[in-house]
């Protein structure tokens, strides 16, 4: 939580006014609309939002993984002081895997189905780190072991379809970690997994983040996933950050009506059965036809005429706590 102490150390990642747009049949779609964030070494940043909130496009934009011809990314992405927005695809190859890596939601589609998993890990080691065959092999087995794969020698010869979903996600994490990235972006890493396996994977990510002092971005729709495992959380809606605060502050003293709506709409184990849920009316907005003012205004009980006309900017209301709302909830 260095950012709260006003650390002067250069951040691991500094994103400024990032904007990603797509040219579509229905007009220009702004998936990420001016997002700035700063991530220090050894900290975990949670990004929470529903489908269409822009969280996945944001993650991919940060790593410059959006390659569609129709897409355009502007703003600044500084990773360890190096500007990524201007890099060519060839230059990016030295960033991917080595400085920054990503773990995706579906381990089946992010692994190569026709390649043994051992070879998928050694590939990066040999290419990026110039390791010899034996050395790469040794590192690969150590990696498989460190991500909790039993009998690594035997599993290294397996194909992805021979492993369970949880094991496959462990393999993709091993691949992501192989070249010692400083930044790990995990996009819904446990959404496709069962709860008991989800917990194993989240613990694995947290341990690896700690041991390697990586900066991590954890993207999810599930507030439970980020609650105990992040330092800061940004809540996204319609491509923008609407509230951002240190994790405990966000859960205890959130001020944005959307953040509260999200918190209240999830059923909780602590509530008795048949507890009436406080649903948010309406549905997430169509990004090609956003309303003029605050994008949440059509679903917001506190919206006024000003909300429908003018877009609130993200402003700091307390040190480390930022909010984009004209009519925030009372401070708790």
């Amino acid at each position, binding site marked *: 939580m260095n950012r709260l102490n006003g650390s002067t150390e250069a951040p691991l990642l500094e994103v400024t006014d990032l904007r990603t747009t797509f040219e579509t049949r229905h007009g220009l779609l702004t998936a990420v609309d001016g997002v700035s964030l700063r991530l220090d070494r050894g900290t975990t940043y949670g990004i929470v939002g*529903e*489908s269409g909130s822009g969280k996945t496009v944001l993650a991919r934009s940060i790593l410059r993984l959006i390659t569609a011809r129709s897409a355009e990314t502007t703003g600044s992405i500084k990773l360890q002081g190096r500007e990524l927005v201007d890099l060519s695809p060839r230059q990016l190859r030295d960033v991917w895997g080595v400085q920054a890596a990503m773990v995706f939601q579906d381990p089946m589609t992010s692994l190569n189905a026709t390649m043994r998993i051992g070879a998928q890990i050694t590939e990066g080691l040999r290419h990026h780190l110039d390791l010899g065959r034996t050395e790469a092999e040794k590192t690969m087995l150590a990696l498989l072991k460190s991500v909790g794969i039993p009998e690594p020698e035997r599993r290294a010869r397996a194909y992805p379809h021979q492993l*369970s*979903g*949880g*094991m496959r996600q462990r393999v993709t994490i091993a691949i992501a970690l192989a070249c010692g990235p400083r930044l790990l972006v995990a996009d819904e890493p446990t959404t496709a997994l*069962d*709860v*008991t*396996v*989800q*917990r*194993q994977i*989240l*613990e694995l990510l947290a341990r690896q983040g700690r041991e390697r002092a990586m900066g991590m971005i954890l993207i999810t*729709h*599930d*507030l*439970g*996933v980020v*609650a*105990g495992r992040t330092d800061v959380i940004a809540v996204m809606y319609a491509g923008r950050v609407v509230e951002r605060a240190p*994790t*405990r502050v966000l*859960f*205890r003293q959130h001020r944005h009506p959307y953040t509260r*709506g*999200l*918190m209240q*709409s*999830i*059923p*909780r*184990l*602590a*509530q*008795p*059965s*048949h*507890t*009436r*849920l*406080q*649903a*948010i*009316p309406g*549905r*997430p907005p169509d990004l090609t036809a956003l309303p003029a003012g605050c994008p949440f205004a059509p679903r917001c009980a506190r919206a006024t005429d000003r909300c429908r006309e003018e877009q609130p900017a993200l402003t700091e209301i307390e040190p480390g706590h930022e909010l984009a709302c004209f009519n925030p909830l009372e401070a708790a």
Partner: protein
Amino acid sequence: MAGSGTAALRERDDIVLSVEHLVVEFPLGRHATVQAVSDVSFDVAAGETLGLVGESGCGKSTTARAIVQAPRPTSGEVRFQGRDLSRLDAEGLRQTRPALQMIFQDPISSLNPRRRIGDIVAEGLSIWGRMDGAIERVDTVLRDVGIDPESARGRRPHEFSGGQCQRICIARALVLDPTLLICDEPVSALDVSVQAQILNLLEDLKASHELTMVFIAHDLAVVKNVSDRVAVMYLGKLCEVGPTDALYAAPAHPYTAALLDAVPEPDPDAGDAGPALEGDLPSPLAPPSGCRFRTRCPRAQDRCAAEEPVLRPVGDDPDHVVACHFPLVPVETAS
């Protein structure tokens, strides 16, 4: 776990659905079969919601499909309103369909993209020749699920969001006035804000349409919210069945407890309850002997490998049953 036995069946006059010794096998290659559901028995009383919960591969969806006989189970009885569906011929089964409806996980692919909403919802009525007042009936159920019939009737599924499509699927299921509604992961494809709307809607409809429900989901908090009783499954067997609040407050089966511990609470101070469950689900092709959960169970002993536990009542509540040799709360020992 492993629970076989019929201790989860109750002696009541208002049982709508009763599943006894249900077994579902699927052929695998030429000579092998896999047993997806192994000797499962439970019942659902009128107006009750039974939650069926478990991880992928536990057989919860297969159980749901076996109830509606699609496909027919390998063996066992499915008694619905007093009749054994597994013995009915095709026409007899067809006659029960209006009373027995189902909604699925992916609402968009459950709707024919080329047809208009009005026709989709009215189809059941036209099949059963109940076209008198059909338009009014369709409008009523659409209104019941929170869709404006005027604007929706002539439109097609792609013009609606996932949450709205699920509402339309529910309207289609309700149009024939069913007794039993089976919901297979009805909210897991939806965003949390929309999920809450659908869960509230199902609760309202259950009351207004006097529905009995079987609600299948992998999300324990969702299941708790809507269910009166919950059945926990693991590798094709029942572990524990009981009244929702009692089962969540004091789980008797170590697997139920592990599942509950694994749910990430949206509370930064909650921390992690208990140790994480180790290992993966064993292969359903060669399930462990005795209790199927024993390979991952922190309490497992030799007896668990030798002998399959049978469902038996927990404490003095005959409605709460567990299949475990070493349960977490005292069970009736006289058996």
